[in-house]
């Protein structure tokens, strides 16, 4: 079996990951496991700092050090809001502002996977006021999952009710969006 990440090397690590309650089988090679942050349970004496620097060092060794030094100076990612650079973030292990999350977005999944046991997406509370349509959106998602189940169970009467509820919520969302934009 080949590695699902690089599709080159043979997969040597096989395990099941549980993310948001869904089980997925993972088959990766040693190199990708490290690089993509699949090694979820750090050994004893782990610290986030080591974790981050270890992760990034791996990146740079791949690139070759000479290439990196000339490369980082010119094209290094920098947050437009707080001016934190990617290398500062690596060194400190802390974000400078909310915008950093967008600036460094492409580099974050492996870090989050390592720190949060394979997870990269939030699955919890939404701000009550600021969350706005997100609450409705979440509700619609739940109804939709419910609907699929009802159809699979051939409970069509129930399913019709749920479908109406979804329509109602979607209309409400449209109204809200229109309201927000005016």
């Amino acid at each position, binding site marked *: 079996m080949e590695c699902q990440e690089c599709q080159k090397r043979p997969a040597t690590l096989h395990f099941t990951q549980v993310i948001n309650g869904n089980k997925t089988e993972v088959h990766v090679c040693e190199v990708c496991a490290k690089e993509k942050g699949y090694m979820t349970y750090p050994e004893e004496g782990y610290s986030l700092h080591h974790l981050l620097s270890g992760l990034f060092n791996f990146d740079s060794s791949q690139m070759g050090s000479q290439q990196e030094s000339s490369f980082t100076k010119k094209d290094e990612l920098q947050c437009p809001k707080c001016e934190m650079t990617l290398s500062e973030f690596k060194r400190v292990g802390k*974000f400078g502002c909310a915008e950093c999350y967008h600036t460094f977005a492409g580099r974050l999944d492996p870090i989050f996977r390592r720190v*949060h046991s394979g*997870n990269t997406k939030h699955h919890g509370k939404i701000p009550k006021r600021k969350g706005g349509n997100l609450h409705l959106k979440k509700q619609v998602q739940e109804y939709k999952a419910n609907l699929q189940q009802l159809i699979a169970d051939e409970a069509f009467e129930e399913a019709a009710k749920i479908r109406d509820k979804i329509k109602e919520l979607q209309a409400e969302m449209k109204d809200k969006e229109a309201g927000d934009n005016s």
Partner: protein
Amino acid sequence: MTLQQFMNEAISPWMREDGPDSDIVLSSRIRLARNFAQVSFPIIAEEADLNRIHQFFEQEYTHASFQDYKDFEFIPIEDLSPIEKRVLVEKHLISPHLAEKSKYAASLISKNEQVSVMINEEDHIRMQLYFPGFQLNKALEKAFEFDDWLEEKVDYAFDESRGYLTSCPTNVGTGMRASVMMHLPALTMTQQINRMIPAINQLGLVVRGIYGEGSDAVGNIFQISNQITLGKSESDIVEDLESVVRQLIDHERKARQRLMDQSSTRMEDHIYRSYGILKYSRIIESKEAAKCLSNVRLGIDLGFIDDIKRNILNELMVLTQPGFLQQYAKKSLTSNERDILRASLIRERIQLEK
């Protein structure tokens, strides 16, 4: 000031109440980290921005009340003496990290000391709610309501896919640490705890001693908390933590029973020796005091000692910390002086029970 008066001021009112399973779980806590969307995080923010946040909290929440959490006091860290800071840390109302910061760091504490909000710590806002005994669900419910109340006036840094955005990647998502403080003397005596900790770690939970340094659990008091904040909902995190705590309570009760079945006289001897030390010693180090307090508390739970209230352990664990001793003495003390005062304060506290 008499000891009674001092204790009335020193011990958080909620600590006097009994909660579910409070023979083993001393307290439950929920902490939520939040940030202002438009302001850089404290590690990098301009002073003027941090000052704005500081002033915002002072103006909006001084003497404000929310449900049972009344008459919030706004305390700029800068205004505190080193001993006063230490006392707040020992009461777990502020973190050591906040105490070290001074400019623009502040804390907002409800009259009953059940809620404290740390301002301009690693994140702009870290609110924590405490409940006596094992009440994580209640604590979570109240923390959500309190969070909503703050959000009425604060635009949180929130992202649909990453959740609540925090300065450290280890807190992103829910921004939540749920924890319980547990007294586990029998699991420690039988050394079962050493085998259980790695298994608990495997489940994404962290176990550590509360007092003392490193993993050394002084007074056999352990804190269990979640490590993962991203990808699981708050209630799932709490549920997972709860089920582990349930099992620990169960194992601890069984271990206590087994110790009693095997050697109740030995246990009684062990407990009364500790009681004797607390009652009669004239110099006592904090480690020895913690060990004896843990034994006496176990003696109360097992029914050997019936003339002392259970919360003596929680109370004296806090009161015999260096910061409190120095506040009681109203001056700084050498470690020898502290050991003498600690012994006398414990003797006096036991006398109060009569």
